[in-house]
């Protein structure tokens, strides 16, 4: 049963990933990405990694992907332009892709140590276990990650923030108090002579 579930989700995952890069519509592509996240979260669940699975869905599907969809919709990306050159690069890209795939395949199927998944007792909560190590053993990387987020924030603000002096904004009182002569100018012109 577990095997069947694994292959079921795996096939969906591979299918979704393939479609993600082949569909024309970027919105559809984003949705396929959501689907592939779901499938991989399910596979993680099979491994009893429920915290990771839920985090994946909450963070990626719930936040990141929604943001991504907004961006895609707002930018109105010209699909044909992106695909321009696709055919031209296709043969050579396929070749290199296949080469790498073959190389990876040869290594992975050749000779790898057999590792059995560690099976935890049913009442062990891996959320709790993560919490126990995150702030003790892994506190150093955790702090660094926090600094990275801070830098990301600083960078985002520094790159997009426009100082108040250059900002364009409305002043309602000016709009209300506007007079006719500020906006409209009547000009008297001679009529066009008839040719």
């Amino acid at each position, binding site marked *: 049963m577990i095997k069947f579930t694994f292959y079921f989700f795996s096939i969906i995952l591979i299918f979704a990933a393939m479609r993600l890069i082949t569909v024309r519509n970027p919105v559809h592509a984003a949705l396929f990405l959501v689907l592939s996240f779901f499938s991989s979260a399910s596979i993680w669940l099979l491994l009893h990694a429920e915290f990771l699975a839920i985090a994946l869905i909450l963070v990626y599907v719930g936040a990141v992907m929604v943001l991504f969809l907004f961006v895609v919709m707002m930018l109105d990306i010209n699909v044909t332009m992106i695909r321009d*050159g696709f055919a031209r*690069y296709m043969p050579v*890209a396929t070749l*290199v892709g296949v080469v*790498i795939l073959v*190389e990876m395949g040869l290594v992975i199927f050749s000779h790898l140590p057999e590792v059995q998944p560690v099976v935890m007792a049913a009442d062990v909560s891996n959320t709790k276990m993560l919490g126990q190590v995150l702030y003790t053993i892994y506190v150093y990387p955790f702090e660094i990650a926090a600094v990275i987020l801070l830098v990301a924030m600083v960078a985002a603000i520094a790159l997009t923030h426009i100082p108040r002096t250059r900002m364009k904004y409305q002043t309602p009182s000016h709009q209300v108090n506007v007079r006719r002569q500020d906006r409209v100018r009547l000009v008297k012109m001679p009529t066009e002579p008839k040719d």
Partner: protein
Amino acid sequence: MQNIYLTIVFAPLVGAVIAGLFGVGRRVAHTVTIAGVGISFALSAYAFYKLVFAGGEVFNETLYTWAVAGNVKLEVGFLVDSLTALMMVVVTFVSWMVHFYTIGYMRDDPGYQRFFSYISLFTFSMLMLVMSNNFLQLFFGWEAVGLVSYLLIGFWFTRETAIYANLKAFLVNRVGDFGFLLGIAAILMFFDSLNYTEVFAQVDVHKDTTMQIISGYDWSVMTVICILLFIGAMGKSAQVPLHVWLPDSMEGPTPISALIHAATMVTAGIFMVARMSPLFELSEVALSFVLVIGAITALFMGFLGLVQNDIKRVVAYSTLSQLGYMTVALGASAYAAGIFHLMTHAFFKALLFLGAGSVIIAMHHEQDMRKMGGLWKYMPITYITALIGSLALIGFPGFAGFFSKDAIIEAVHHADRAGATFAYYAVLFGVFITALYSFRMFFLVFHGKERMDEHTRSHLHEPSAVVTWPLIMLAIPSVFIGGLTIEALLYGEYFQNAIFVTPEHNFFNPADYHGVWGFVVHALGQPPVWLAGAGFGTAYYLYMSNTELPGRIKDKLEWLHGILVDKYGFDRFNEWFFAGGSRGIGSFLWQQGDAKIIDGGLVNGSAKTVNWFSGVIRHMQTGLLYHYAFSMILGLALLLGIFVLW
């Protein structure tokens, strides 16, 4: 003594720094540099006196240890023995004369101070080279004299030809230096030291060592080292086929042609081989190689002197040919004769160059001999000194060049080494050629019809005393130095501690020597003197009495003349093969690799318009990232392919 040696080396450097870096006036510039080199010369003469006549000790000490890496010590030190002392005196004396001469020659040049700074810097570098007691310092001096030489060839950098000549000298010397560096590296590898004394002390250990450069073939280490070192000497001393830069170096001002490209720097290769005589003596193959290269240079470069019309180029080819003679002497194990010729040549060739310079000043920087003639009555001092220089060059009995050249020819005659017979006939015939081109130039310039225009003729006069005085000063040793020193240098014990010759290679036996007059009388019965006379006679016939004939010969032998004017095609071959080839590779990489893939889309648009900017960049940007990312993936695939699956 240590302080004296330090002063000898650093006095010119101080002069160069003051003249070059402090923006001083002309008068100050030439005063400090002349004073610096003058001090240097005076102290060199004193050191020479102390060492040779007052029985002083050979000085060989390390003064400063720069760095120690493993068991390799990088040091600065001096080795002053009889060989070095001789070189020091010659270098500082000629340099000093050239300094004086420069005051007159460069009078109107805007780069006056710069020029003085360079030649003093050159003197410093040359002294570092000859006084070194280790290979590192030798290499430093070697590169430093090269650097100053490039700077001076390109001194008139507004001339296209000067820049071209400068580049050529640089590139050709890179080939030589590469060999030289490999030679030094090989010495370091096998001897584990860079100090001369330490290396020479171990030569017997490595006498029969072999190495495999291409696996399966054993090479004698000594042969490999010596040939590599000699390749360095070929670049610096302009031996075939690395000679191509020297004629072009005449683009530089004449004083440096005299100092650097005739008297001192180009002889550094000869000096170096003589200094390394303990190594060269162990390799018969290398000596044969030296001998043959020298012989080819001596003869074939002489031919080229026959067809040149530029007065400086004739002297330049003559220099090449004479350098060939010195190399032949080295190849015949007659190192002392090579150094002897080096010394006499330094005086008379500097004299000839400065004389040519004097003519050039008088002719308002006209160098074409076809526009000269009959100058003897306008500039008597130059005329007399040039005659002395030419006689010394062709080996007129009694003059300096006679002794040294005759000694070389005799030594080659008696050598029994592969190539010695060829070398003997080459240098012998070379004597005839030397006399022919020397007096061709002499007659064309000083005798015959006055072919210059009226304006130039009316201004012809002897240049000022700063020009003529060095000529006279150089003419004196050009006559006498040979007869005075031959006994000590060749047959005496002068070089006993400095140059090593295995007894069976040694030709100069004190018992064979019967005084200067004996040498002269003996020589009168030998072919060289008669060949020189024949050369002189031919020159007289062709350019004085039957002046129509040369033109007719030229027409008859058009093909031969063509080859000679083409300088045997070396330049064209180099240009086509090396220059063209590397340019091809460069432009291929540039256009295909860089221009198309990288530059094609990059924002190098400071010169382009804003429109071009937005349009092309927007369009190219996706392409670029594809390309960049793709190249990374490709690299990954290749690494995987090579290292994982191989």
